[in-house]
């Protein structure tokens, strides 16, 4: 399928979701997966600034903990932090370059370990304010072209709108509340991964996979279901537990 056609479909899919009572984490996760598909990159993640101005991962194309941890390493250093501080995109960064290792000693080696060679950071902007960044990783050194970077920025803008839900954008306290609420949902989902992994004796990644499949097939909002797991009002025994086994392999 031509990319233009696929692109149109993706925007229709997102627009449809925005009209419904959508779950912000689930939509951002889908958006991350679409970034991977449309831009031909290996992984994508969306990071938001918390109350201290440090970045936290909110969604990723792949929930593997190793990838989540790589995003988390950028809370105070890395291309995303620089993009967030300056408001400018940082693209086609070669992680094999000695400069990258020197600039970000905690981030670069870990990214290389997973096998990434190129990274990009695109700002999530609301008018003159930067609220986070879209982060892309590639296992190859193919450069993203201008039009692909413009597309990445368009997807980042959709993510921003999704998070802020279009309403009352002028009121910064509303923005803050929605950012906090998205970050809080993210923490909740991580806690639920742990709860389920322990109950089922599986890895957290397998637990999450089963949990999300259940939520999607029953049209339940991920965050709502997570909250019900935590407060005990949902019996997790009804979710088909994944088979217990060793940790899954590294992030794709």
């Amino acid at each position, binding site marked *: 399928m031509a990319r233009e056609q696929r692109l149109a479909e993706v925007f229709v899919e997102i627009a449809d979701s925005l009209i419904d009572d959508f779950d912000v984490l689930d939509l951002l996760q889908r958006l991350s997966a679409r970034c991977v598909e449309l831009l031909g990159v290996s992984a994508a993640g969306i990071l938001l600034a*918390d*109350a201290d101005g440090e970045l936290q991962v909110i969604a990723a194309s792949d929930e593997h903990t190793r990838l989540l941890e790589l995003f988390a390493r950028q809370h105070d250093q890395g291309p995303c932090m620089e993009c967030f501080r300056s408001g400018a995109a940082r693209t086609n960064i070669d992680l094999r370059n000695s400069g990258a290792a020197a600039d970000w000693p905690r981030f670069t080696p870990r990214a290389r370990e997973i096998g990434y060679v190129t990274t990009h950071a695109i700002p999530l902007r609301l008018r003159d304010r930067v609220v986070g960044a879209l982060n892309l990783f590639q296992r190859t050194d193919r450069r993203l072209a201008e039009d692909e970077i413009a597309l990445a920025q368009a997807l980042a803008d959709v993510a921003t709108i999704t998070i802020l839900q279009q309403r009352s954008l002028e009121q*910064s*306290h509303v923005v803050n509340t929605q950012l906090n609420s998205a970050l809080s949902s993210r*923490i909740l989902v991580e806690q639920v991964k*742990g709860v389920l992994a322990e109950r089922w004796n599986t890895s957290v990644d397998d637990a999450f996979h089963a949990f999300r499949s259940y939520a999607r097939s029953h049209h339940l909002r991920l965050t709502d279901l*997570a*909250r019900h797991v935590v*407060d*005990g009002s949902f019996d997790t025994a009804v979710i088909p537990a994944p088979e217990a086994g060793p940790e899954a392999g590294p992030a794709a």
Partner: protein
Amino acid sequence: MAEVLRSLRPGSGGDPAAAGARALGVPGVAVSVFPRSPDGVGAVRAPEPLWCFPELSLRFEELQFTLGEGPGPDAVRAGIPVLEPDLRLVAPDRWPVFLAAAQQLGVHGVCCFPLALGGARIGLLTLLCDGSGPLSDIQLQDTNTLTAALIASLLGDRGPLDGLSSMNGGPVGSDGAAGHDGDGLWPPEGLRRAVVHQATGMISVQLDTTLAQALVRLRAYAYSSGRPLGDVAEDVVARRLRFEGAMDDDGNGPHSPDGGEG
């Protein structure tokens, strides 16, 4: 705000509520925390006042949780802030008993912010307002900072909930604190890492306790063993470390499952 953050350090002798009211420019501040409940993992309990300034804010806090209605109980139930800086503008049927009682008490407006990390519910921050209008952007920003600091402090190794971990068989090392340079409370080290929250979820099942208690236990263990929180959390998630034993037992710290039942 710096004074507020200082007042949260253990042993500072400061009053975070009074300092908070001064820093935010509001007439009163109350911080309430959920008590440990032996049975109610799922039950919504009322938080209990921990720091209040002035006396009025304590009476207000007791009022709304005695009545079980008002912005505080709503914020606790929904897990989102409830801002009503001018109680005269609130529809009378929203909180029929509370509204009249609050105004009689002399409270003109109130803004309530839940203190929570995901599903780990810790408490509630209540700001009394003078009824002259909404909080400014700067006040709201400062409130965000205060909220983050309170969460970190309340979960802290020697913070107000610390008794919970040491009295509950948490591994209290005699010299384990060596290598830490002070309060270990601020900034909330490691709380940005997914693995910490995953480990918290696992520990809550291992100990059959709330997420908040599980996180306190995890942090206490990391502190007393002198290791970074994230490293300990990795051990929990990789099942190299388990927390076991009822919350009220003594001496049931975590243990490594090696050589055990496997």
